Structures are given as C-alpha cells and as structure tokens.
C-alpha cells in the first residue's frame, strides 16, 4: 500500500522573461505514496501550482524551465520520456489533473459526455468499441453523482459544483494512479465544497488513487490529507504527517503565522495576528532565510545564512534556524 508513487527530488524551476528571472520553485523534494493524500498549503506565489504543472510537464514552453532536480513517477524520470510517451502513457492516464477553475477548464462547445469520451478514446489501448466507451462515460458520470442522461448537455447548463464534478469525472475516467488537484474547491461554495471533497474521499477509497491536493485552506487539509507540506517562496518550510502539522508544538514561524491569521470559529479573538509584510520578490530572493523579513523571531543569522532542513521526528521536518540550533545544542550536551 505504501509504495512511493511520485518522488520529486530537489526541484528548481525558473521563469525566464526578457528582463528578469523569477525563481518560482527552489529545491522542493516530496514523495506521494499510493492510496494516500498529500496536501500542499501556501499562499499565492508560493510555487504550489508551478510544482504541480512541472509534474505533467505543462510549464509554459518559452518561459518556464526546470533548472535542477528530478521528478520520478514509479522510478521513471518524467523528464527523460519523449513527448509521445508522455502524452499517451502518463498525462490523463497514469496522472491526471483537476484545475482550479471549473468554468474555464471545460470546452464550452462540446457536450460534457463527449469531453469525457475524448479522454477515454485517446487512452483506449484495449481497443474497446464505441459502445463500451460510452458505457464507461455513463459509469464515470454516475460515479461523480451526475445522472448519465445529462451527458448530452453543454457545460453552461451545469452549475459550478456540477461543472467541477464533470472535470473530476474526466480526470478519473482512466482511473489514474495519481490525481493532482489544484485548488479543486476554491471557486465553490462551502456546501458544494463539502460535496466535492466528500466525493473525492469516496472515490479514493473505491479507486485507490493517490491524491496531491493543493489548497490555501487549512481546513480542507485537516479534513482530507494524510500528510502535508507548507510552501513559502518556492520552498517547503515545513512538512510532516497531518498530526505533525496540526498538533501544537514545534512549528515554522510561517506555519504559526498562517494559523494565527485565520479567524477561529470556536473561540472569540478580538484581533487577528496577520503576518506583517509581503512575500519576497521572487526575482531577488534574499541570501538568508526567505521568511526572515516577516519573521517575529528573526535574528542576524537568519538574514545572512539560508537555513538547512532539520528533522524533528521521523516524518516532521522544518526549514528554520531556530530548530537547527536547538538540535545542535542538544547534540553537544
């Protein structure tokens, strides 16, 4: 069950424009195990989406490029495959992706049925007949809770939540081993979000795929994920099992900041504690810790030297000087 499906090692991605170089992802390493859900949390510009796009080699051709690191899917390096192999064997078949905005990820002039059919036909290695494929279309639609007779309708005839289900149906049509969901519920209302999340959870049980879930909502992570990463300025600042991240204890100052900035439903707080300042400019990242400028605990050292990753327990790692020093002291004693 716990086989490593996707392994990213030390990934660096840059966007190159005529004027400047944007360092979007800086040394990201992660593992997704089969049948489990990994959550990536972070704010706009943290590099979450860029990381995901790179897994499917969907980075914009002319500007985006991977400048270092490996992405392996089942021990196969994604970037050593040919375009052809990528298209016919990986994209949409072994790995599929759900994009953030259901309104723009469907083709408005194709019926939803034919959009699902298209995916199936493209990956039809067993030469199934048209009838068999159509039957599968009905099956997937029913799976996501849409009556099969609606497959002849167009996207505009569906509500936002229903459209996102169609997008999920397309992604699941070929029973992928890995499902990448990039903010799948951000554009949806809470009640619809609850439906979509519950559905994704059920489907995972049924199909057994691994899910890489990107979100900025800590609530969604707490409900859905087994493991979680917190990203900031293209780096993973904290990673661990869901318990590591959500139980009080040692945390990266940014993670603590994120929790402090959301209003708590259970207790009344007079003021929120925002994280002051802004994320550093990704074209001019500082030498030291990227979070130092906003960090309430920052010292001189933080501004000069970039911290290294510290393991707190088997699964829990933090990228912060406070913890690396603490450990050093302990080991000296």
């Amino acid at each position: 069950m716990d086989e490593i499906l996707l392994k990213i090692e030390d990934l660096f991605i840059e966007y190159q424009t005529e004027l400047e170089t944007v360092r979007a992802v800086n040394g990201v390493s992660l593992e997704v195990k089969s049948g489990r859900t990994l959550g990536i949390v972070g704010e706009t510009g943290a590099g979450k989406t860029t990381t995901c796009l790179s897994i499917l080699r969907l980075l914009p051709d002319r500007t985006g490029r991977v400048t270092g690191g490996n992405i392996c899917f089942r021990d196969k390096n994604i970037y050593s495959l040919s375009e052809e192999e990528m298209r016919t064997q990986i994209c949409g078949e072994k790995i599929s992706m759900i994009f953030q905005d259901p309104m723009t990820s469907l083709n408005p002039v194709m019926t939803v049925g034919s959009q699902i059919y298209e995916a199936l036909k493209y990956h039809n290695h067993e030469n199934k007949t048209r009838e068999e494929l159509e039957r599968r279309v009905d099956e997937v639609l029913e799976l996501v809770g849409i009556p099969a007779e609606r497959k002849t309708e167009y996207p505009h005839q569906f509500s936002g939540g229903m459209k996102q289900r169609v997008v999920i149906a397309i992604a699941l049509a070929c029973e992928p081993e890995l499902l990448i969901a990039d903010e799948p519920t951000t554009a949806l209302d809470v009640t619809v979000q609850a439906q979509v999340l519950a559905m994704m959870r059920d489907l995972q049980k049924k199909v057994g795929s691994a899910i890489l879930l990107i979100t900025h909502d800590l609530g969604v992570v707490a409900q859905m994920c087994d493991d979680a990463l917190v990203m900031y300025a293209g780096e993973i600042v904290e990673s661990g099992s869901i318990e590591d991240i959500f139980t009080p204890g040692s945390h990266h100052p940014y993670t603590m900041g994120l929790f402090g900035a959301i209003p708590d439903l259970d207790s009344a707080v007079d003021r929120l504690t925002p994280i002051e300042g802004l994320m550093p400019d990704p074209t001019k990242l500082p030498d030291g810790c990227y979070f130092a400028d906003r960090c309430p605990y920052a010292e001189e050292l933080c501004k000069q030297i970039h911290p290294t990753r510290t393991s707190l327990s088997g699964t829990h790692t933090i990228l912060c000087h406070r913890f690396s020093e603490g450990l050093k002291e302990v080991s000296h004693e």
Partner: protein
Amino acid sequence: MNEARILIEVKDLCKYFDVKGGRKLHAVDRVNLTIPAGKTLGVVGESGCGKSTLGRTMLRLLEPTSGQILFEGKDITKARKSEMRQLRSKMQIIFQDPYSSINPHMTVSDIIMQPMIVNRLFHSREEMVARVKKLMDTVGLADRLYNAYPHELDGGRRQRIGVARALALNPEFIVCDEPVSALDVSIQAQILNLLMDLQDQMGLAYMFITHDLSVVKHISDEIAVLYLGQCIERCGATELFRNPLHPYTKMLLAAIPVPNLSARTRELQVIHGEVTNPIDPPPGCRFAARCPYCRPECKEKDLPLREVNPGHFAACTLL
C-alpha cells in the same frame, strides 16, 4: 445593542430582474433588516443568494423593485438624483475585487481624490492633497505610493486604496462586498484588522457581505443568513454559531472544514437536492426542496421571519 441609534433600516426590500418571457428573477425577496450606527451586520450566503444585489440595492446602485430603505429615518428609495448624490457621501461601498474596482490609468492619489472632486468637498487643491495623505496614512499606505499606479501594488495594498476611497467622504455606513475574498489569509487578516480599527475610531456601520463564515463571525455583531434572496435567519454573531435554528444554517455551518484534527472523523455534511430556481420561485420555504425536515405546510406559503428566542429571528415552520 438596543440603545444604539438605528442608522439604516430596510423594510420588505425586493429586487426582481426581468428575464426572458416576462418572468422575474427574485434576487432579493422581502428582506427586512436594521443596522445600528457603529455596528456590523454580516450577510452570509452562497453564491447567487442575492448578497451583493442586496448590498447594491441598499445604496441604490440598483433600483429596488419595491420596499423601503430608511437612512436615518428618511426613505431614500424616493430621493431625487441630487438628494441621492448628497446621501451617497454618507454611504459608501468597498468592492470585492481590488484588481477590477480601481482604474488602472489613475494614480493612487487620483483614485482617492476622485470622490472629493465629484462631491466638491474642498475648495483648494492643497486641502485635498492633505486629506489624501491623511487617508493614506489612516489605511496604512506609505507616503511614497502617492503617485504610484495600481499595477505596482499587491492585492492587499490595492484593497487599502479601495478602503481609503470609501472613507474619503467621511461616510457613516459602508457596504463591504466580500472585501477580503480575493486576498491571501495573511493579507486578509491585515485588512480585517484595519476595518475593525476604523470602525472603533470613526464609529462606522458596516454591512459586511461574505461567503466565509469564519470571517463573518469574527467581524460581525449581528449576522443575517440569506438563501435565494430571502433572509432565513438573523441573530447575534455568537448566538448563530452556538445555536443555529434554521436547517439550512445548521447545514451551512456543518459544511465548513475546520482546521483542526478533532473534526476529522466527522462526516462532512452534504446537502442533497437541487437548488430551487430563483425565476418565479414557487411559494413556501425556498429551502424546502433540499430540506430533510420538509413538511407539506412548508410549501404552502412564504414564511416571514419570526422571533424564536429574544433577538433571534428565523423563518421555518418547525420552530
């Protein structure tokens, strides 16, 4: 809360939009609410429930179909254009999207100055410049941004421009239409704190429209829950979360994913059934088609809000 002066009162406000075939889309349907001076009324509901339409209709940015809007006891639905212009200086709005609600061709100072120019607030340019600088300071925009253009700024700072512009005419009432939805959580907290500080300093009344329930609880004194154009529950903010009465409110609250592991085992509440069509909706409770407790009488006639507990209003046959 009763001692506070009622600043704005809405009585049976309706806003219907015409659609094809002479039918009517009931965007806001007989809504009643009051906002005391210096307090915040939170308005929550899902997309399409008429929150924004309600906010805009209250400022007469949209003409109400029927009903009354009393601002300091005066019915503004009948006010003439010139009267309305004067009244608008007391009622302002902050829009949802800080990227599209400010003119990209204008500098920060021009944007904030615009309402003062339109309303001929000052006679000399010096006074106006001084006022703009003061406002920028109030909302936490650095002086050096005076001549900056919006594209140079991030979302949080842009939303601060929106706040400064709304404050320019010293309003008493501001409609905040999802002012933090487009922002990241860390920035969102900055803007929420700013809005609350301004309320303390200037005694502003807010109508705070949002779909984010944790935000609305944090900022509101009273909360109104909207469902398909109708207000189905209204009460104090803590009371709503402690003791929700309407089945829809209960489900809405249960659907929020909580950033807390203890809630993990809890099954996410899923509301089944299709949303009632807001075009010429059938009589009765709008939520009846999705309500697990629906009884025949729910579909017979429309239900008014009823005071179930002191200060706690709900519209449901079960109560």
